[in-house]
């Protein structure tokens, strides 16, 4: 992994109103095959992508929120969510769906993929990347 680049996928938009969230997820699923160091950032309205209980039957649009739970299978295990963005929107980490990955090295122990970080930590994460893609 030493020559792997660090890729950060920045999600700042809410789902369904526009297609960016869905097409961002499609990029991440493909990116996972390239053995780079992949992280996802959710801030501003992007935190709305991860809320529980999304049900799209009435709007006739595909519900892609369950797909986030498959990311662990794709070895995408770092989903950074900004605490201030949640706070500003009256959300709490418990309003987000649970997303886990199985650690092969620890007997497939399930570990949380969502990591709540402060705005300052998010800035550090952004500054630590080789490539930043925004959606």
């Amino acid at each position: 992994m030493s020559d792997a680049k660090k890729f950060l996928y920045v999600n700042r938009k809410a789902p369904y109103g526009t297609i960016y969230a869905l097409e961002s997820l499609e990029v991440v699923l493909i990116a996972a095959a390239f053995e780079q160091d992949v992280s996802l950032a959710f801030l501003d309205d992007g935190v709305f992508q991860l809320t529980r209980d999304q049900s799209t039957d009435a709007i006739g649009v595909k519900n892609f929120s369950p797909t986030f739970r498959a990311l662990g299978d794709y070895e995408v295990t770092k989903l950074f969510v900004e605490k201030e963005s949640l706070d500003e929107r009256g959300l709490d980490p418990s309003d987000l769906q649970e997303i886990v990955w199985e650690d092969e090295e620890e007997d497939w122990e399930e570990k949380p993929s969502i990591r709540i970080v402060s705005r300052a930590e998010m800035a550090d994460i952004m500054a630590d990347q080789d490539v930043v893609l925004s959606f």
Partner: protein
Amino acid sequence: MAYQVNGSTIEADEEGYIVNLDDWSKELAAEIAKAESVEMTENHWKVIDFLRKYYDEFQLAPAVRVLVKNAKKKLGAEIGNSKTLEEMFPKGAAKQGCKIAGLPKPTGCV
């Protein structure tokens, strides 16, 4: 193109993927497999069942390496290895498996 199942016609695209995912049934899967020259064994059905459950849970047809990894865990190493899966589905376990399982056509993204 189309498949005939129990006297009804099921619409499919040029490559044999069914157009309406709700049309899927085991009888239809058997017809698709026949058209693909895949002889369905018990193990084939296990993989098809796994693919449908995976799609139900995640709204996603798994990439082939994810299929192999999960099949190993859920169905055992005997089926869950890329060599066996390739032999079972010569045109690609993810691609051909998904076609028979009635999942969306992969967009061919990589």
